[in-house]
């Protein structure tokens, strides 16, 4: 079996972002999605710290400390971009104005619950940032993650064991093995991404029952 690497997962997510969408990309793998949006589509990236129309990384030497992204890295703003304050920025998120957010996760449940902010370990210092607002507010929540933990356990679970970020909010999961939709009646396999992986083997690894209806 040949799993997707991080960039290949990002490429797969980018394929599903339609022309004209307002999109918020989380830190880490989700950020890579911006590099792979097909050239014939115009999308608007939202950065929680107050930009619509976030552009690519600045050229070396042209960074500006007043212009950063949500990961606090130097950023640029595209022609047409807008700046706004934090209450407006999260009004956009909570108010359902963001079409898609892409988040990383520790676990996603069969009901679409997401856990991505806290390992729950007693000595861990918790940090939540904008994750709970995005989970609660974006019209669609896409999750990118490796399908299995280092121990080989499925990160897609019946019930999350890590502290929750949001309930019943994830709409689609992109892993190094597969793309899976979360629907009211459970998890639906969209496609297998890992080369040489059978449905039965994916079902065995996934731990939670997957529905699959081949295209008619």
């Amino acid at each position, binding site marked *: 079996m040949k799993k997707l690497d991080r960039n290949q997962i990002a490429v797969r997510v980018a394929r599903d972002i339609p022309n004209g969408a307002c999109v918020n990309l989380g830190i880490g793998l989700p950020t890579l999605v911006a590099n792979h949006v097909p050239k014939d589509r115009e999308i608007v990236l939202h950065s929680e710290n*107050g930009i619509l129309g976030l552009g690519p990384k600045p050229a070396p030497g042209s960074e*500006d400390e007043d*212009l*950063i992204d949500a990961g606090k890295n130097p950023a640029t703003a595209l022609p047409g971009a807008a700046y706004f*304050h*934090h209450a407006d920025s*999260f009004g956009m998120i909570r108010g359902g104005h963001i079409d898609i957010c892409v988040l990383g996760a520790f676990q996603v449940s069969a009901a679409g619950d997401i856990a991505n902010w806290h390992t729950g370990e007693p000595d861990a210092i918790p940090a*939540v940032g*904008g994750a709970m607002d995005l989970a609660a507010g974006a019209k669609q929540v896409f999750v990118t993650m490796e399908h299995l933990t280092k121990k080989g356990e499925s990160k897609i679970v019946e019930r999350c064991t890590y502290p929750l970020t949001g309930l019943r909010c994830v709409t689609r999961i992109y892993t190094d093995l597969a793309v899976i939709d979360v629907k009211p009646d459970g998890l639906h396999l969209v496609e297998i991404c890992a080369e040489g992986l059978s449905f039965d083997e994916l079902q065995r690894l996934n731990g939670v029952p997957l529905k699959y209806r081949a295209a008619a």
Partner: protein
Amino acid sequence: MIDKLFATPEAALADVPDGATVMIGGFGNAGMPAELIDCLIAQGAKDLTVVNNNAGNADAGLAALIGAGRVCKILCSFPRQADSWHFDRLYRAGKIELELVPQGTLAERIRAAGAGIGAFFTPTAFGTRLAEGKETRHIDGRDYVLEYPIHADYALIKADRADRWGNLTYRMTARNFGPIMAAAARITVAQVRETVELGQIDPEAIVTPGIFVQRVVRVQTMRKAA
């Protein structure tokens, strides 16, 4: 004549008492009023409750204020970072209290204080650990959590331009929490790059009207590349 311009940061912060609640603008270092924070450290006020998105980066600004042991409690959304060692050390030693607030809830609680809102229901964090013990309500098919405003004695913010009435403009993502903190605090101190005559800021372009700003200090900030 109305003149909110102060000659020095020291004069603008001289009356901050021990135990004050102080909002500090900035998202990471963008919009952080570093010179005002340096002045607050020198001024000596202690047992402060600080409201900021983060809990300081590296050794300067808010991190230095925390490192100096002046902060007894912080309300923020994202304290843990690769370079938040001053906060991490005091938190693990039980010497600083943390109220972790989702970023949008933090922003809205600050906004609510400035706007005279007594409380509000938000969908954020419903069913999570951060909503434990809080009042909830089911409204029109959705579940919400009751959240209360955050008021402050002082707000220390960084803007770009100001006039003597305290009208402010900002620069790019350095705006972040500035406008809402300005409205939420009893005394807002803005450090700015430039002060101009009344009328030189286009009224259409003013982001924070002077009604929300009590003190303005011009600071010659070196803008360094990140």
